[in-house]
């Protein structure tokens, strides 16, 4: 199969999650909706069910969700609620609602109330003091609650061995995605920003073993290609979600390639692996504890600027000339970390621009002008 065709397949899946959901259901699978951030998807997989990521939508408009939220909430959460209310997600068998940010805290209640008895909700509160034994213990307690709820939905008890297997599948998937990100940088003439995004986005709507198999095959084909002789510029993207094809098309129009990303929906979600041996619940808790350089998570070494410096290094190491920050509107954690990200980038001599985005954006004129001007500077 040609590289183009392989990427086209990922693209079809990324752009048609409804079809994926319907197909899984038609095949007799149970499907669990997984909201951001850090839900242990491995447990859903271990339960023999399909986890489907819910990161809003670029196509929908907020209407029914207005009965629950004021306007000043991120559109990812509002559109997730919209899809639960408008019937899009009616086929789900369960919904995991993490609560690590100030929008997801009260929204966990709105999700639960709004869908009533239609779909069971699985509540999840991660610890921020997550490193010491007692932090790991609390995380395990939370994950055990998730596990029990998933068992109830699946109708059978998952074993530790099931979870270990799931961890292996997920580690392989994360490794394949990390490799793909590197290859996409080396072959940015073939893997355009739009295709790169689609390949990574598809992972949220597929069973990870099937996804990994396809991605490994794609990676193998990419490796065979000569490295791109890229005449355009390269950037690192940063933010919560950067998957709008219209926005990414502007990159392509201006010969901007994505060298690497610091995006919650992309690399931040697959930087950290879990131990494949020992107590698998502890392994998952440790994986969360080891998740680092993230705007949403507490950093005990907060008096230094570790995260800002990490992102600045990512820009340098990936060979990018600058950074484009997609500032998700009303996202406090991203907004709170911006001044120190800017500081680290400025100190490293890395130019950047900050683009305000939300998922209801339909007019990209302003973004286009800003991106074009930025490319000219680089």
């Amino acid at each position, binding site marked *: 199969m040609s590289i183009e065709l392989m990427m086209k397949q990922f693209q079809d899946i990324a752009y048609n999650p409804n079809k994926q959901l319907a197909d899984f259901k038609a095949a007799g699978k149970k499907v669990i909706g997984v909201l951001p951030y850090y839900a242990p998807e491995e447990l859903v997989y271990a339960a023999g069910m399909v986890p489907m990521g819910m990161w809003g939508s670029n196509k929908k408009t907020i209407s029914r969700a207005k*009965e*629950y*939220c*004021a306007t*000043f*909430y991120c559109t990812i959460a509002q559109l997730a609620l919209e899809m639960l209310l408008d019937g899009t997600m009616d086929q789900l068998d369960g919904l995991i609602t993490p*609560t*690590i*940010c*100030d*929008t997801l*805290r*009260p*929204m*966990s*209640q*709105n999700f*639960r*109330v709004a869908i009533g008895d239609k779909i069971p909700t699985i*509540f999840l*509160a*991660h*610890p*921020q*003091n997550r490193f*010491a034994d*007692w*932090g790991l*213990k*609390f995380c395990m*307690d*939370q994950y055990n609650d998730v596990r029990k709820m998933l068992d109830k939905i699946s109708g059978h008890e998952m074993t530790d061995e099931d979870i270990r297997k799931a961890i292996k599948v997920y580690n392989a998937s994360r490794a394949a995605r990390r490799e793909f990100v590197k290859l996409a940088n080396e072959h940015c003439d073939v893997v355009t920003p739009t295709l790169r995004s689609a390949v990574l986005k598809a992972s949220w709507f597929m069973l990870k073993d099937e996804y990994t198999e396809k991605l490994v095959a794609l990676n193998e084909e990419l490796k065979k290609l000569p490295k791109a002789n890229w005449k355009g510029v390269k950037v690192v993207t940063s933010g919560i979600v950067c998957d709008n094809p219209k926005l990414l098309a502007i990159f392509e129009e201006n010969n901007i390639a994505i060298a690497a990303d610091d995006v919650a929906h992309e690399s931040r979600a697959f930087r950290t692996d879990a131990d494949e041996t020992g107590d698998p619940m502890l392994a998952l808790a440790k994986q969360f504890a080891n998740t680092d350089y993230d*705007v*949403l998570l*507490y*950093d*005990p070494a*907060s*008096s*230094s*600027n570790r995260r800002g410096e990490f992102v600045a290094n990512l820009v340098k190491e990936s060979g990018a000339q600058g950074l484009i920050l997609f*500032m998700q*509107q*009303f996202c*406090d*954690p991203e*907004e*709170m*970390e*911006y*001044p*120190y990200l*800017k500081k680290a980038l400025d100190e490293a001599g890395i130019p950047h621009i900050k683009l305000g985005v939300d998922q209801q954006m339909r007019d990209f004129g302003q973004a286009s002008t800003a991106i074009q001007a930025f490319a000219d500077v680089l």
Partner: protein
Amino acid sequence: MAKEVSPGVLALRKVVDDVHADARKAKAEGKLVGWSSSKFPCELAAAFDLDVMYPENQAAGIAANRDGEIMCQAAEDLGFDNDICGYARISLAYAAGKRAARKFDPETLEYIIDPNSGKPLKDENGKVVMGEDGKPVKDPKTQQPYTVLVDIHEIEAMPDGPLKDKYWESVKPYRQMRIPQPDFLLCCNNICNCMTKWYENIARMCNIPLIMIDIPYNNTVEVHDSNVAYVRAQFDAAIKQLEELTGKKFDEKKFEQACANANRTASAWLRVCDYLQYKPAPYSGFDLFNHMADIVTARAKVQAAEAFELLEKDLEQAIKEGTTTTPFPEKYRVMFEGIPCWPKLPDLFKPLKANGVNVTAVVYAPAFGFVYEDLDGMARAYYKAPNSVCIEQGVAWREGICKDNKVDGVLVHYNRSCKPWSGYMAEMQRRFTADLGIPCAGFDGDQADPRNFNAAQYETRVQGLVEAMEQNAANKEG
């Protein structure tokens, strides 16, 4: 006529003034001064005799003193988005060294008066004096200099002399603009996760240690043992960090005393809140807003417990005498949902007064009523902050005070600064109306940034609520 202030209120003011004075003195003597989130377990710091200031209270005070906008703007100039909580923005600007100050002429060192400031001048008959331009003449005694922003690091770098001294003097003199810079931070995110990032930012700005107590969101009315164990372990870790910070051993006796004081204060606070159950109420919920600073700043001090107990006596007396501090006859009673818009308190009050609406219930009552018996109880108490509880608990608290305090309606503040608080408010409104049969009205505002409040919209919403309460009353009678 100046409002008569009761002995209890005066005692509470003194307690808070003393806490601030002690912190300034401690800083001058080279001792450690911390900044703490309002619902961090203050009992821990008290066990180490540490002087602690509260940025949320400070921000509310700065906003009430009309400097919210200039400080929020200063934070935005540092790169913090204007969607971030107004308290956080004010506090981050302050931590970065920004201060609201009075403008002066660097040559003469005289303050430059803002001609638009001040109250209208009145003649001996109490009539407003009109100027030649047809506008009221300002009373020069009430006029203030222009407000400008200064930076303490820039002032520190200036050569010693009268100009530098004048700059220091020009910083606004009210206590919230004069709190010492922090040497350590105590963060508890039971009210919001924004707190976590806010304090991390201060830790970076000031290069100081941060002690973090994390309270994850809770989806059930009960606080389960797993959650308690996590918080208890964090108390122990915080104690170790405080021992390292201070070089002192944890003093269990002092801790027990602080806990006893905090419980006594919280109990007295709850009893004071309960006086709003009387009809008519001996005071207004707006007075309770003002006491929030007291309960936050001095909860673990015996003086705070004594002052609240004194206020309780004042209220008992007021009930006997049938008096109230509410300056209008109470026609309707409402719950005010949310944090008030501190920069706009007069605007909030005006249409309520005009319609005889007294605020007889505020959510601050249960929000600071931390009463417990032992360490597990303490962990459970701190787990129950307004923004860390599930909707069922949130509704139960509010419906409880709505019933006890006999309210006719609910005024809901959709607070741009507080996503966790406003996040399930629409569903709450529906439940209040369904469960209690009372009307609700929402308005848009902000706890600290005056730019997010529209007085005209607020007045219309209050009017709508009053009409609905009128109709409700008529229906009951009819």
